[in-house]
């Protein structure tokens, strides 16, 4: 199985090159290649997931250079789950985009495959500098995707997005440099050991480096006060791209979880749980700010973008608690919020494309085609995002509340999560009633050109909602798996021994 770990990175990379070199003039062939590659990716990542659920962490040494000198990829339960999530989301997005969006600019499919490569790489890598490289790969692809189809608003938002992320990349390098200068390693497993050996005079440097790195991950995860790029970017990105970006914020959350539970976790002595005092308060503010934005939004897409910020707040509250129960609850909510955000962006595009010149502004307008059917889809998506029963958001939030019961900040967490859930319901309820109910009483009908029943986009949107239903129905087995994930995260010795060999732990604290 070991060699298969590299496939989720190599397959999209080869496909992207093939698409841009061989079939760039034929949109049908591009679609066939892209969808086939994504289907194959789903199959590969599913088998990796099944493998990881029955085994300990597995390492793949790139170029067969031994760790910690070479770069390693590590497949454990968490990374297997994340690459599977990415490929499922990617499948929905590529089906949606293949009906019409991919023709509004050039090279959509190639950029999309590069994006998948970067995201999968970031999830699989076991090396901090390699993480930076995969961040760049996914960012470069995302710049192209974000600007797909262009237009003044999108260029403006894209410019800000690029500048913020370039600054973030510079900070990432500074943080990595500081960590390397005192530990002499970039391998995450080796870092976990070297952190315990750092001289006390260098501890401040290490701490500063680790916190700069935390800031960079928080930019990715759109945590307050570095969330400013998200609303503009998501609201102005092409709909399928916005849906795909639902996984990008999760990359940031994943990195917080990975680095600060492995290298700065239980074993790190003075540095133990370095991130915990910062993540939780920031996450609480993020949740309040996101859901306030939902109430204040004047456009459908920015409403959804702010709800994404809110859901990142909820997710990072769970991660910021850094207990096994909270993390398995948070991971369940992460699966849920990825699919629900993607579903909402896709449904919003179906709505917007039928409203003609009214676009995505939250005003009453005459009826449009299939408003009843789309209202039903939007209703389901909104229930998911707000975390109401019967969909999986409710289970996720309930688990997070339950896990927060023993926390010192329990009063804050409970009250903020519950109040913001109400704000989210009000915001989405208002948007839905303006878009669908009030508009039903206006005379006339908007007619726009184009397919009456675009088959692929509707399949993709329903597929995303179907994923929420599946998460709800199979909540039991999924929670069992997630408990395994967080148990493995907290038992870091498994990860370290898988990368560095059996005797690695004897070097601890020397």
């Amino acid at each position, binding site marked *: 199985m070991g060699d298969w770990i590299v496939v989720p990175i190599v397959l999209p990379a080869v496909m992207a090159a093939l698409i841009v070199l061989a079939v760039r003039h034929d949109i049908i062939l591009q679609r066939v290649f892209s969808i086939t590659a994504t289907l194959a990716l789903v199959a590969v990542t599913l088998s990796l997931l099944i493998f990881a659920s029955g085994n300990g962490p597995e390492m793949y040494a790139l170029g067969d250079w031994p760790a910690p000198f070479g770069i390693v990829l590590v497949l454990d339960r968490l990374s297997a789950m994340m690459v599977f999530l990415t490929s499922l989301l990617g499948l929905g997005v590529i089906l949606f985009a293949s009906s019409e969006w991919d023709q509004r600019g050039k090279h959509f499919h190639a950029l999309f495959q590069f994006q998948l490569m970067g995201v999968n790489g970031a999830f699989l890598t076991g090396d901090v*500098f390699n993480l930076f490289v995969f961040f760049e790969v996914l960012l470069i692809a995302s710049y192209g995707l974000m600007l797909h189809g*262009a237009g*003044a608003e999108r260029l403006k938002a894209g410019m800000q997005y*690029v*500048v913020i992320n370039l600054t973030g*990349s*510079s900070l990432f390098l500074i943080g990595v440099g500081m960590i390397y200068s005192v530990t002499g390693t*970039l391998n995450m497993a080796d870092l976990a050991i070297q952190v315990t050996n750092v001289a006390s005079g260098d501890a401040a440097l290490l701490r500063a480096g680790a916190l700069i790195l935390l800031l960079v991950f928080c930019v990715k995860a759109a945590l307050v006060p570095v969330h400013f790029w998200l609303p503009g970017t998501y609201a102005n990105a092409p709909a399928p791209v916005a849906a795909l970006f639902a996984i990008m914020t999760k990359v940031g959350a994943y990195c917080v979880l990975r680095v600060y539970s492995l290298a700065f976790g239980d074993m790190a002595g003075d540095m133990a749980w370095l991130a915990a005092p910062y993540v939780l308060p920031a996450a609480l503010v993020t949740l309040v700010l996101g859901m306030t934005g939902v109430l204040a939004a*004047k456009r459908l897409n920015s409403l959804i973008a702010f709800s994404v910020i809110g859901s990142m707040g909820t997710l990072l509250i769970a991660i910021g608690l850094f207990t096994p129960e909270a993390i398995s609850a948070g991971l369940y909510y992460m699966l849920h919020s990825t699919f629900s955000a993607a579903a909402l962006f896709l449904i919003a595009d179906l709505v917007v494309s039928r409203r003609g010149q009214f676009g995505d502004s939250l005003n009453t307008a005459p009826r449009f085609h299939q408003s009843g059917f789309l209202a039903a889809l939007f209703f389901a998506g909104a229930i998911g995002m707000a975390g109401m029963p019967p969909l999986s958001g409710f289970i996720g939030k309930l688990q997070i509340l339950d896990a927060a019961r023993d926390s010192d900040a329990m009063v804050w967490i409970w009250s903020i999560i519950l109040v913001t859930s109400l704000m989210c319901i009000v915001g989405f309820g208002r948007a839905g009633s303006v878009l669908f109910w009030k508009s039903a009483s206006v005379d006339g009908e908007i007619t726009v050109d184009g397919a009456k029943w675009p088959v692929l986009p509707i399949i993709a949107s329903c597929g995303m909602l179907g994923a929420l239903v599946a998460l709800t129905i199979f909540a039991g087995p999924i929670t069992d798996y997630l408990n395994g994930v967080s148990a493995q995260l907290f038992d870091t010795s498994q990860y370290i021994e898988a990368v560095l060999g059996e005797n690695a732990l004897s070097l601890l604290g020397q």
Partner: protein
Amino acid sequence: MEFLVASSIGLLTTCGTYLLLRGRTFPVVVGLALLSYAVNVFLFAMGRLTINMPPILREGVTEYTDPLPQALVLTAIVISFGMTALIVVLSIRAFLEIGNDHVDGRPVGAPSEAGDKN
């Protein structure tokens, strides 16, 4: 030498940060470039500053300079070079399409439209 390297990194970072916070795209691009230079030099320094030493470990060599930061700097330079090219093209495109070169797409003093911000 430590003082020289440290103060030049500091100067580059200061200028880069100042320019990054300007409102027009051209200073921002230059600021990003300066910031990436500062980071590159900083990365060099993370393997400690040594002069006239081989970047390799072999028999008979006890003093050497750390080769890893040099490899990392090479990667960082390639990436930041590509990124600078991208953002130059992007800001020209934004200037042509929006009609001005402000990062938030509107000239100083112009009233914000109600529907513009979310």
